[in-house]
């Protein structure tokens, strides 16, 4: 609801911060694949309720982002606490491409060059900057990240 009512007023060059997506990515980095996929499902459904895009678009999109963040995040975190933030741009781009692909399959027109240039790349920048604020907040909520399965 915050993403639908409050964040549009804070849009940068028309690009809104995708708060729910960033929370899914941050949780994936902290807690691994399984939990981030669960939150991708819950968060995706919640966002789809407010979106005019085909229902399920955000579930697929966030699921792809969760897969990236949940797989790579815990590994990178063993190297450095800040390195997982580098996953954010990749996860955001993959999520946006997945969403655009779902909409194209559903029959929505998707002009790929302008979609990438005017939406996906700016969203990657805006969300990456926003993650610098969101990740510490998520870390404060979850002070004990789970180690990757191969280490257990």
């Amino acid at each position, binding site marked *: *609801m915050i*993403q*639908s*009512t409050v*964040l*549009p007023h804070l849009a940068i060059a*028309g*690009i*809104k911060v*995708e708060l*729910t997506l960033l929370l899914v990515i941050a949780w994936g980095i902290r807690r691994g694949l399984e939990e981030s996929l669960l939150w991708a499902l819950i968060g995706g459904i919640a*966002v789809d309720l*407010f*979106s*005019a*895009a085909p229902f399920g*678009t*955000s579930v697929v999109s966030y699921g792809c982002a969760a897969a990236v963040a949940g797989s790579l995040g815990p590994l990178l975190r063993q190297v450095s606490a800040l390195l997982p933030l580098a996953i954010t741009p990749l996860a955001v781009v993959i999520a*946006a491409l997945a*969403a*655009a692909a779902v*909409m194209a399959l559903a029959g*929505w*027109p*998707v*002009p790929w060059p*302008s*979609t990438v*240039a*005017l*939406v996906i790349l700016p*969203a990657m920048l805006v969300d990456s900057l926003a993650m610098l604020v969101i990740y510490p907040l998520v870390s404060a909520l979850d002070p004990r990240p789970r180690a990757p399965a191969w280490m257990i």
Partner: protein
Amino acid sequence: MLSRLAYAIPVLLVGILLIVASRLPQVQILEAVAFEVLGPVQDSVSIPVVHLDRIGQTVERISQLEAENARLRAEVERLSREAVLVPELQRENAELRAELSFQHEHPEFRLLSARIIGFDPSNLVHAIIIDRGTRHGVAEGMTVITPSGLVGQVVQVSPTTAKVLLITDVSSSVYGVVQSSRARGVVNGSRSGDLTMTFIPQNLKVQPGDRVVTSGLGGVFPPGLWIGTVTAVRQNDVDLYQEAKVQPAVDLSRVEEVLVIINHLPSKLG
């Protein structure tokens, strides 16, 4: 008891004696000397008393000032609230007047006022959420406008809310006509939020400043609704059609209230 009263007699006799003696010059001199001696003493005593009296008055004044301060603060708060409220009321008044004027100009439309309560959370979709739904007579496909022009079309409805796809969305297509030359075309949204009018016949003149309105073709939108104004034209003799950039009539980033035309639904072409 009588013996006690007897003690008063000498006192009274002395008092009478003093009254009589006060007329004597010697007694008056004594009186003046005593007064002269006691005067400075009295003056010294009176100074702190005067100060104490002033302090007392100041304390009383402080409590009066506190009460007045509280009263003035409340007045300032009331005026501050009004200062915020008045511009809002003026804005609402202006909007309602514009809606009323639009209704008078278009008596064929039944209009339902709605407030924008949210925006599509996805960056890939340009849509808004309004606070009217099926309970208020809104249905899928209805046209959404403001007195300034076309906003979009209802795409999803619930009992109390509806999602409206804006004309600036890339999936939006509106049949339009240039008012001056009657050149017809299709107005599409884009990722940048601008509008592009395509399929404009080459032989018809279109120039910046021309107004584009809905043509009513296809029966989706009622005719005559202002879509936007031509800002640039791209014409190439080797192309079949010319293209025009159109600036939306409605600043969709600032609009807060919209109107739903509830007595017009898209025609189903067989």
